[in-house]
């Protein structure tokens, strides 16, 4: 009798968990950055729920651990900026890039180039003045490192003539610039604007004035693709809808090609993102900050594939990425239609 009731209980539990399985869980890792806005919007708008997915967000303090967590299987998908470390990890077969994150695009603010007050006073006014000066970066092989490499290529100066100072964190970079211990920074828009507005530094240009590039991506592991492809397809579909909402609300240009925010469209979307990026700020303040930190995101989360190949080639040329790393092997073009600039 007792055994039968236990069995009945187990059967009931099995039914319950069967019901829960219909709402499949995907664990996603990200930083609290506006560049992941499409993901946050898709969650808030319920696009994942519509696909029968429950997204469990894990927030990280730095980009690299997200990629490592995807390799180790602790999380199912991740979103970060591309770095030398990311490409090395991907090259070892641990990662697959499946959709786009943010992008540096002409006409849209992205990372900004800041010059310290002391260096500005001595005549550091434009990108061409970089040789002979120091630049604070987070880490070797970070996106900031890549961006100074591209500025050097575009403006035709030798990167070796810029003294790179790894400072590990964004607050340390800001502190070093304020105290004139480094001459310049390339840094995220919200920090750049804050420093420039407070008179602690001079903003001499936006990176997107000089170059466009695929800033980051949504990625997963080969194991995940093998075991749960259908789930990932649903995930990417919902994510693309989020990107579409983000792009139409946040990336409007006026007739002159200048970005404008229509409060009726932008404020609700920015408010949703603010809940994740600035959780401790009052909603109005968070919304304002999100608008000031908005990166370009492709409306269908398509990747600029050729640019990724170019990035890997540059990192290789600097000895930061192993020669054996092949972008073709770690980009899976099957989840999003119409990726641009795909090399033959």
């Amino acid at each position, binding site marked *: 009798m007792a055994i039968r009731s236990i069995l009945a209980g187990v059967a009931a539990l099995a039914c319950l968990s069967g019901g829960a399985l219909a709402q499949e869980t995907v664990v996603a890792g990200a930083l609290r950055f506006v560049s992941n806005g499409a993901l946050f919007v898709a969650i808030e708008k319920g696009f994942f729920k519509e696909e029968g997915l429950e997204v469990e967000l894990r927030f990280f303090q730095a980009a690299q651990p997200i990629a490592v967590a995807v390799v180790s299987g602790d999380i199912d998908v991740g979103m970060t900026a591309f770095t030398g470390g990311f490409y090395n990890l991907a090259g070892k077969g641990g990662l697959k890039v499946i959709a786009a994150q943010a992008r540096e695009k002409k006409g849209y603010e992205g990372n900004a180039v800041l010059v310290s007050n002391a260096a500005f006073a001595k005549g550091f006014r434009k990108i061409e003045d970089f040789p002979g000066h120091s630049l604070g970066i987070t880490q070797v*092989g*970070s996106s900031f490192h890549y961006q100074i490499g591209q500025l050097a290529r575009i403006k035709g100066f030798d990167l070796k003539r810029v003294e790179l100072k790894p400072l590990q964190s964004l607050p340390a970079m800001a502190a070093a610039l304020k105290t004139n211990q480094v001459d310049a920074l390339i840094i995220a828009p919200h920090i750049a604007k804050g420093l420039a507005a407070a008179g602690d530094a001079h903003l001499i240009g936006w990176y997107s004035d000089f170059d466009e590039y695929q800033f980051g991506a949504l990625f997963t592991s080969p194991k995940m693709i093998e075991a749960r492809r259908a789930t990932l397809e649903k995930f990417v579909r919902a994510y693309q809808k989020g990107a579409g909402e983000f792009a139409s609300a946040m990336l409007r240009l006026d007739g002159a090609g200048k970005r404008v925010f229509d409060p009726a469209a932008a404020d609700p979307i920015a408010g949703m993102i603010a809940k994740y990026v600035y959780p401790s700020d009052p909603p109005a303040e968070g919304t304002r900050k999100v608008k000031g930190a908005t990166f370009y995101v492709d409306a269908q989360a398509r990747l600029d594939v050729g640019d990724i190949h170019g990035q890997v080639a540059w990192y290789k040329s600097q000895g930061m990425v192993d020669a054996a790393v092949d972008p073709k092997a770690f980009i899976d073009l099957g989840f999003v239609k119409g990726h641009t600039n795909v090399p033959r």
Partner: protein
Amino acid sequence: MAEPVPFRGGGFQPRARRLVAVATLAVLVAGWSLASRAGWVSPIALPPPEEVATALVRLARSGELARHLAASLSRLVSGFALGAGAGVVVGLAIGLVSLARSAGMPVIAALFPIPKIALLPLFVVWFGIGEASKVATIAFGAFFPMAVATYGGVDGVDRTLIRMAQSFGLPTLSIVRKVVLPGALPAMLSGTRIAAAIAIILIVAAEMIGANEGIGAFILAAGNLMQTDQLVAGVVVLSVLGLTVSGLIGAAESVLLRWRR
């Protein structure tokens, strides 16, 4: 007739057998290599020792190793000399002078447990992002264990020896030089071991901020780039550095503590 009592002395004198030391390391490396080859350990988690060796050889050949070592060693030597030197002076003062003891002990007790890495951002503000902050980080790390070991050693000097010297009418300075210092030396030397190890640990922390050269900076960059073979190669260099320093201190011990035999 009573049986003769057998000699029960001896023992309690562990000797270092070099062959055992080398064999232990060899077995560890062989196990690591086997685990990598058999696929028990993924190359992402830990590169095989052969790759690490290749990375080391490449580093040494390109002259990068020498460049990084030179930068780190100069920081290590100057930071350690400053920190340990100050530690000896303060430790002696605490061990010998009541006023210094009353003032110094609580300060050391309060500051020793602070992780120096946590103070790094402040060191950057105080000393900048140049060499000074790096040397200061290492010096602060080496200071505390050295000071504690020194006053502990002075406290542990046999009081009867001091009383004897006093009854022979030796002046204070002479007692310090001939009784207290030699008596405290064993403790000071083991303090030196700990201070040196902490200084090596702090090289990586010190080179986190604004360093392009140095073993610590090299390890950090390799970690950032996920070049695990180079990362482990850098760690091996630190380890060898630790072994070397430990060997040097061992040699100093055998010379300075000859009187103990």
